C-alpha cells in the first residue's frame, strides 16, 4: 500500500531542510580542517563520506530487488505445475465431450431417429459444450488457441516474467488480479510474502520519494533565487548588525521557501508523468490514449482494478520501472503537500500548536519563534559579552562539582493545578508531535 502508507504523516523533511544549510557550511569547514592537518587523506575521507551516505539507500534497493526476484521464483515454482495440470484436465474434458458429440450425432443419423429428437439432442450438446467452454475460461488459464489440437503448451500464465510482474504489483499493493495464486501453498506464501514485503517495498519507495522531494525543494529554491537575482533585488552588507539581520532573514526565507512550494507545481509534475506514461503505454500495448491514462491513474493510486492490464510480456520490465518511478513520484507529492494538511487537521481546535509556526507570548507581545530566535541572537551578543567580562573578574570563585545537577524549579507554578494540566498537555503535545 505505498499510496496509503507511503503518504502517511511520517517525519517530513521539513526540519531536515531547515537545518541543511548549517550542515553544508559545517561540512565545508570540516573539509578545510582536514586539509590543514593532513592533505593526503582528503580523497579517502571524501570517498568514505559519499560511500557512507549512499550505501544505506543502495542496500535497501538491492534488498528489495532481491526480495522481489526470489519471490517471483517461488511463485513460479508453486503455481506453474498447477496451471499445467488444470489446463490439461480441462482440455481433456473438452476433447472427450467433443468426441462423444460427434459419435452420437453419427449414430443418430445412422439409426434414422426422427429429426425433432435429433435437433433437441443437438441443442443439449451445444449447451453442454458452452458450459464446458465457460468453465475452462473461468480458470483464467485457457484460451481458444489452447483447445486447438497441438496448442496445449502455448503461453502459460505463470512464467518467470509474469511472476515478476505479479510479485511487484503484489508488494506495491496495486494488485491487478489478472494473475493470482490458486493453490493453498501459493496463498499461504502470498500471505507471508506480503506481510514482510509490503513494508519493505513501502520503505524503499518512500525513501526514493523523499530523495525526489528534497531535490524538488532544492530546485525550487534555486529557481526563486534566480528569479530574485533577475529582478535585481540585492541587499548590500553595510555593517555587522545588518549582516546578522540578513542571516536571520536568510533562515526565515529558506523556511518560507520550503513551506510555500505551490501545489499546482506538484500537481503538474504528477499529471505530466501520468500523461507521459499514457503516451508510452499506448504505443506499447496498442491502447488509445485515454485507456493508457486511465491505466496510469489507477496504477499510480494503487487502486488496480485489473480491467486493463498490460499484455505484451516483452514490455513487462519497462512497465515495472514505470510503476516504481510513478509510485515514488506520488510519494514525493504527498510528502510535500499532504503532511501539512494532515497535521493541521489533526491538531485543529487544540491549544497546542506546532512550535515552529506558533506565536510565542513574550513580554505581552506575540512573536513567531523564528523572530524570537533572531532576538535571541541579538541578545546573545550583549549578554554573552557581559558574562565574559564578569568571568574574568571572578575567575577564582568556587564552583561546586554538582552544580549542573541542581534543578531550578518554579515551585509556585508546579504547585498549582493549572501547572500540572499544562505539563500534561505539554507531554501530550510533545508525544503527538513526535508521532507526526
Amino acid at each position, binding site marked *: 500500500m505505498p*499510496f*496509503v502508507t507511503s503518504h*502517511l*504523516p*511520517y*517525519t517530513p523533511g521539513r*526540519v*531536515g531542510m531547515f*537545518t*541543511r544549510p548549517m*550542515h553544508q*557550511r559545517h561540512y565545508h569547514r570540516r573539509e578545510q*580542517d582536514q586539509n590543514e592537518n593532513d592533505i593526503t587523506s582528503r580523497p579517502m575521507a571524501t570517498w568514505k563520506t559519499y560511500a557512507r551516505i549512499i*550505501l544505506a*539507500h543502495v542496500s*535497501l534497493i538491492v534488498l528489495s530487488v532481491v526480495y522481489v526476484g526470489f519471490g517471483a521464483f517461488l511463485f513460479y515454482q508453486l503455481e506453474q505445475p498447477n496451471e499445467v495440470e488444470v489446463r490439461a484436465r480441462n482440455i481433456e474434458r473438452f476433447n472427450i465431450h467433443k468426441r462423444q458429440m460427434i459419435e452420437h*450425432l453419427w449414430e443418430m*443419423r445412422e439409426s434414422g431417429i426422427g429429426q425433432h429428437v435429433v435437433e433437441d439432442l443437438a*441443442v443439449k450438446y*451445444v449447451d453442454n*459444450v458452452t458450459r464446458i*467452454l*465457460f468453465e475452462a475460461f473461468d480458470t483464467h488459464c485457457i484460451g*481458444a488457441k489452447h483447445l486447438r489440437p497441438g496448442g496445449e503448451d502455448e503461453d502459460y500464465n505463470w512464467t518467470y516474467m509474469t511472476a515478476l510482474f505479479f510479485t511487484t504489483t503484489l508488494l506495491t499493493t496495486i*494488485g491487478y488480479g489478472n494473475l*493470482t495464486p490458486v493453490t493453498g501453498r501459493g*496463498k499461504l506464501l*502470498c500471505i507471508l510474502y*506480503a506481510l514482510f514485503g509490503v513494508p519493505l517495498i513501502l520503505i524503499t519507495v518512500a525513501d526514493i520519494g*523523499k530523495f525526489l522531494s528534497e531535490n524538488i525543494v532544492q530546485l525550487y529554491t534555486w529557481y526563486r533565487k534566480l528569479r530574485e537575482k533577475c529582478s535585481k533585488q540585492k541587499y548590500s552588507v553595510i555593517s555587522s548588525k545588518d549582516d546578522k539581520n540578513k*542571516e536571520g532573514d536568510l533562515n526565515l526565507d529558506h523556511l518560507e521557501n520550503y513551506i510555500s512550494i505551490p501545489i499546482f507545481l506538484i500537481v503538474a509534475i504528477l499529471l505530466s508523468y501520468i500523461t507521459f506514461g499514457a503516451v508510452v503505454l499506448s504505443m506499447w500495448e496498442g491502447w488509445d490514449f485515454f485507456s493508457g491514462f*486511465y491505466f496510469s491513474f*489507477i496504477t499510480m*493510486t494503487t487502486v488496480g*482494478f485489473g480491467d486493463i492490464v498490460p499484455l505484451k510480456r516483452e514490455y513487462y520490465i519497462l512497465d515495472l520501472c514505470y510503476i516504481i518511478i510513478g509510485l515514488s513520484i506520488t510519494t514525493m507529492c504527498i510528502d510535500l503537500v499532504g503532511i501539512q494538511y494532515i497535521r493541521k487537521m489533526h491538531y485543529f*481546535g487544540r*491549544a497546542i500548536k506546532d512550535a*515552529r509556526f*506558533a506565536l510565542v507570548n*513574550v513580554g505581552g*507581545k506575540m512573536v513567531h519563534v523564528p523572530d*524570537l*530566535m533572531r*532576538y*535571541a*541572537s541579538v*541578545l*546573545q551578543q550583549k549578554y554573552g559579552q557581559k558574562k565574559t567580562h564578569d*568571568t574574568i573578574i571572578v575567575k577564582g570563585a568556587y564552583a561546586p562539582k554538582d*552544580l*549542573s545537577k*541542581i*534543578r*531550578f524549579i*518554579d515551585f509556585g*507554578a508546579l504547585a498549582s493545578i493549572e501547572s500540572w494540566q499544562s505539563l500534561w498537555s505539554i507531554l501530550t*503535545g*510533545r*508525544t*503527538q508531535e513526535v508521532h507526526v
Partner: protein
Amino acid sequence: MARKAGGLAAIMSGQPVVVVKKRSVFWRLRHLTRQGGLHVGLILLCILYVHFGALFFMYSESPEEQRILRRVEKRYDILRETFLENVNRVKLEDFSDERRVNESISRLIDDYSKHMFKLFTNPVAANMFDCLFYSQSNYTPLWTTDSSLLFTATTIIPVGYGYIAPLTSTGRIVLCIYAAFGIPLALVMMSDVGKFFADAFVKFFHENITAFMVVLLILLVAYSVIGGIAYSKIVGVPMIEGVYFSTITIFTIGFGDITPGIPVYVIIIFIVFGVAIVTIAIDVVAANIIHHIHYMGRQVGRAKIIADKMLSMAQKISINRGLGLGMAQLGAFARMGMMINVSAMGPQDGHANGGVGEGGIEMSRKSTWRSENDEIKTRKSTAFEPDLDFDMIDFRQPSGSSQYLYGFGFDNNAFGLADGQSDEDSVFM
C-alpha cells in the same frame, strides 16, 4: 524596525505578566465541540462521498450494462443457431464418408469455441454465463446498490478489487476525478482516526515506543488472522482462503479473485479498521526506519534532533511559563539560537564576531557527532580556546561535548535517541 525594538525592550525588561483565565463548564463543552467537530465532520463527509459516488456510478453504468447484455444475448443466440444449422447441413450433405463428416463437425466446434471465448472476455457476458451455469438463475446485474457501494468504497481506500469496473468512457473519466479527490479524503480521515488511537496507545504504554511497536505488529497479525477465520466460518471456505482474503484486503492489494459472500457494510467496516491499523503500524514503525535510512551518513539527522529539542523547549516556554519568561531561560534559549545561527555562517564571519563567535563555532563543532580522533584533531587545530562562559555547567568534567549539548535541559526524545546524560544535566525539568 520599530516593532523589533519594542519587542527587544520588552524582553530586556523581563516583566512577567500573569493572566489567570477562569474555565467554566460552558467553555469546556464549547472547547470539546470545536475539538471534535472537524473529525466527526470528516468521517461524515467520507460516508456521504462514498454513497453519492455509488449512486452516480450505478445510474451511469447500469444502462450501458443493459445494452451490452442485450447485445451479448443476441450474439449468443446467433452463434448457437449458426452452429446448429451448419451441423445439420454437414450431416445432410455427405453421409457416406464418416471421417469427412467428423472432421467437418470438429472444425465447426473449434470455430464455435473461438467465438465463444471471444464473447466471454466481456465482463457482462461473463456475468451472464456465470448466472446461467453456476447459479441456474436469472441474470443478476453487475451494478447494484451493494456492488456500487463496495466499488466506491474500495476505490477511495484504495483496495481496488476489480469485481466491477466502469465500462463507459464517461464512467472512467468521472472515476479518475472521483479518485483524485476521494483518495486524499479517505487518507486524511483514516490517518486522523488512526492518530487518535496511536496517541492513546502511546499514553497507555507510558511512551515506551518499542513496546508499542511490538503490540501494534501483533495486533496487525491478529486482526488479519481473526478476520480471516471469521470470514471462513461465515462463508464456508477453508481457513487459508479466509486469511488470504483478509490479508490481501487490509494491505489494500485487492486481487478480487475471491468474491465476498458477506454484507457490503460489514466488509467495508472491516476494510476501514484494517487499513487504519496498517496505517498506524506503518506510521510508527516504518517512519522511524525511513528517517534513519534516509539521513544515515549525514549530519542533518543530528541537527534535526537539536532543532526538535529546541522547538519543544520553545513550545514549553510558550505554554507552561507563558508570560513569565525568565532571564535565565531566555539566556539559555539565546545561546542555542546563537549556536544555530553561528554554525550557519562561514569561517570568516565567525572570526569577525570575536570571542563570542569563536566560542559559538567551537560549540557547534563539538555538538556534531564525531569520533574522538576527529575531536582531538579539531581541538589541536584551534590555537586559541577562550573560556566558554555557560551558566550552571561543571567545567571540570573531562568530556565536554555532551555537556555543552545537553546542558540546557533538553527533553528526552520519545524514541530514546538522546544521550542518557541529558536527564542528569537537565536544569529546567
